[in-house]
């Protein structure tokens, strides 16, 4: 629970989690193949007839587990708002324009070394109703299956030097500052394509499948 993020009040368990040693049920999980992915799924700028407005970026990185092993052939799903800060979703009432050339959804499989690659546009910041003058820093939602139920992770990737960080209760719902900073991608000239797109690196660590489950406060 993190009271400044209001909906957590009624949606967070109060009792401690029960530690579950890993069995076959926890070390397996859904496996996807290349048949589940189409060619433009990892390029959110090529999913419509025209190009979306905004700053074109590439987001790339490697998925590893906490033993340092690559997590190959695993499904990554992302979703985000457009450059104006609007999601293509009926719940989003922000008075910013939709972009007919941007859906905001992408998916890909990591390669044999755990690497992945997306092309998209930089999402905008947007207001939300949590508290007066609440604004979310620009972010991209990431969902990863890993290779096992115990590795399932849904998180958000942020961009360097966002002035909204100190004010965002979702970013700050992670109590440890070092842990929060892991969710900020890094600008990299090496991933930046000349005359085309700015490059950001976001390497992701999933929990391993063996060993003692971590201690965790909900």
């Amino acid at each position, binding site marked *: 629970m*993190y009271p400044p*993020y209001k*909906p*957590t*009040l*009624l*949606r*967070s*368990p*109060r*009792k401690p*989690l*029960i*530690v*579950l040693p*890993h*069995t*076959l*049920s926890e070390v*397996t999980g*859904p*496996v*996807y193949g290349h048949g589940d992915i189409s060619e433009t799924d990892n390029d959110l700028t090529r999913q419509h007839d025209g190009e979306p407005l905004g700053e074109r970026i590439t987001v790339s990185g490697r998925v*590893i587990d*906490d033993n*340092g092993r690559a997590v190959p052939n695993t499904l990554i*799903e*992302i*979703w985000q708002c457009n450059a104006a800060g609007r*999601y293509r*979703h009926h*719940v*989003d009432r922000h008075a910013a324009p939709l972009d007919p050339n941007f859906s*905001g*959804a992408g*998916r890909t499989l990591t390669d044999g070394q755990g690497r992945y690659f997306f092309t998209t546009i930089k999402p905008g910041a947007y207001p939300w109703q949590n508290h007066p003058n609440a604004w979310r820093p620009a972010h991209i*939602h990431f*969902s990863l299956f890993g290779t*096992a*139920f115990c590795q*399932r*992770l*849904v*998180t*958000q990737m942020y961009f360097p030097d966002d002035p909204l960080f100190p004010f965002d209760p*979702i970013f700050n719902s*992670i109590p*440890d500052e*070092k*842990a929060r900073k*892991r*969710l900020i991608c890094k600008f990299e000239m090496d991933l930046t394509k000349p005359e085309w797109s700015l490059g950001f690196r976001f390497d*992701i*660590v*999933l*929990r391993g499948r063996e060993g003692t*489950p*971590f*201690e965790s406060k*909900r």
Partner: protein
Amino acid sequence: MKAKGKKPELIPFPSQTVGPYFQIGLSRPEPTSQIAPPGVPGERLKLVCSVFDGQGWPLNDALVEIWQANANGKYHHPDDRQKKPVDPAFLGFGRMATNNEGICVFETIKPGRVPGPGKNPQAPHLTVSVFARGVLKRMATRIYFAGDAANEEDFVLARVPKARRNTLMAQPVPGEPGTWRFDVHLSGKQETVFFDV
């Protein structure tokens, strides 16, 4: 968080909420209410899952994911090395958003017993992940079947205080053979047992 002695670059990443717009990104493969297509061997089940907040209000913006073994107790996964058949038509994964009543429905088969750490296999169960706006991390739980004799010797249920075990039990719906109901209470008096996996 983990883990004394780990290099900082090897500490697992923190979770964040799925927020209110997850259906943009998590709607494929197509909303998979049908975990087991017709014809997959096993006892067919209709599983009606509801998600409630701490005041008992249904959540119309939750996402429920299910992962389960087939009727032989084998997972469709390369690390399940049991010499038992898999069915290519049965991946064992389902994912549905709750509707305005806080409900999502899965069509599946009752899983067989999968090995546990001791001599007894585990009781038939499905693993469950629950996500929602305002839920900071994936909540992991299990669905067992009320009245299944194997529950008595299940090593996971044995770790759960007796008074809370019923929160992990799907209940048969009276008058609707094959239909089971499972309620998730994220908080409140009937709070579901969640696991640290």
